[in-house]
């Protein structure tokens, strides 16, 4: 018996190891959401990011970096304010006052530098040198002076990983600023598109696209891009809407993390509402 197994091993060891490793990969693939896996991942990229940041720092000039950071911080604040002013211009200011809308003018910003980028065209990720210690939490939006960049995905003590707009796993609720139409935007691997918008909806080339207020990920109206191509489909009844993002991800080095995640109060309220609805149905 032992001789049989020894013979099998000697003749097919490469294939046996290959099958075992493929099975291991598939098991790991199915465990992606597990908290233990997330923890191991946070430790791994946190440790590696320490070395990456050293190399990354060698490529930047210290004094200019600080000055640049301050200017970019100011720029990002102004960008958010302008974005809000645009929104206020469209919706009647008086009605907003009557309804008791709160002005959330000052959003806290956490400055961060990109210390490395992912290898993939489809799963674009950025490693940032700001982590839990700086107040970063998963789900926080990442922006720069031009607009929305992505969402913080994983956080370690000193570093964080953000999914960018060029990541197939990031699906974002966005809004046409002019017509107030909401839609889901995603990265196809080649371009940013808004999906499932019927042909009859009012979307025009050149319309500004911002993150939607109904988004469960980004609570603020942040500029995302403009409609570059709009092609109604006669067969499906849905339009093809291509968005050109405001932010070019290649040259950016410094970003800001908006230290605000979706309001827990709002989330709880929505959750209670849905629970009540399902109780009534029963």
């Amino acid at each position, binding site marked *: 018996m032992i001789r049989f197994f020894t013979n099998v091993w000697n003749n097919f060891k490469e294939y046996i190891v290959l099958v075992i490793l493929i099975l291991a990969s598939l098991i*790991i693939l199915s465990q992606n959401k597990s908290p233990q896996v997330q923890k191991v991942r946070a430790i791994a990229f946190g440790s590696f990011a320490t070395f990456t940041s050293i190399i990354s720092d060698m490529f930047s000039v210290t004094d200019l970096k600080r000055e640049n950071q301050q200017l970019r911080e100011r720029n990002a604040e102004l960008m958010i304010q302008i974005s809000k002013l645009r929104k206020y211009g469209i919706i009647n200011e008086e009605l907003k006052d009557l309804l008791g809308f709160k002005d959330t003018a000052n959003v806290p910003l956490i400055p961060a530098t990109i210390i490395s980028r992912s290898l*993939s065209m489809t799963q674009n990720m950025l490693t940032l040198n700001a982590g839990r210690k700086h107040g970063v939490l998963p789900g926080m939006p990442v922006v720069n002076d031009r607009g929305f960049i992505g969402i913080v995905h994983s956080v370690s003590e000193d570093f964080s990983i953000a999914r960018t707009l060029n990541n197939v796993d990031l699906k974002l609720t966005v809004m046409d600023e002019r017509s107030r139409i909401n839609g889901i935007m995603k990265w196809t*691997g080649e371009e940013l598109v808004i999906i499932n918008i019927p042909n009859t909806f009012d979307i025009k080339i050149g319309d500004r696209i911002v993150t939607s207020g109904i988004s469960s990920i980004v609570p603020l109206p942040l500029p995302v891009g403009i409609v570059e191509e709009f092609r109604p489909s006669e067969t499906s009844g849905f339009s093809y809407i291509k968005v050109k993002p405001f932010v070019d991800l290649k040259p950016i080095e410094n970003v800001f993390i908006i230290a605000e995640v979706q309001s827990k109060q709002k989330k709880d309220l929505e959750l209670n509402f849905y629970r009540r609805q399902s109780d009534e149905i029963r």
Partner: protein
Amino acid sequence: MKFDKIFPFLIFFVGLLVQVTIIPLVSINGIVPDLILIMLVYYSITRGQLYGTVLGAYYGLSVDLITGSLLGSAMLSKTLAGFIAGYFSTETKRDINISTFNFSMIVFLCSMIDTLIFSFFSAFDFNTNFVTVLFEHALLPSLYTGVVSILFIFSPFRRKRLL
């Protein structure tokens, strides 16, 4: 001898450091060469198929953990790439395969397999055009990786390891 066995496992971190910090500077339209794959192919040819398969799994898993990609996707793709590269590890052709342009061809082939499998987990959905994925996500990065691997044929590092 023992250090020689674990050296490829250690040098990986230097390679990945270069891959995520310096290699993006030479990207062409978002396409970057895969230095890790070049290292994997080299070690698979010089050390055999079994070693290449295990090394591929280790490189892939580490890439997944460190870069934040879908955990297990690069592990699967690089395991298979290491296994395929190991087929070119025959005693008689080993030296020819790493010291001539054969090496670039093998890198190109393994890169195609690696990127295709990796894209399967990241780029495919119901609306994806297979030809586009094949061309933009597999062929172009593989070509770039294959071209960059030519530099490796003439590198002093490779010559030293051959001795």
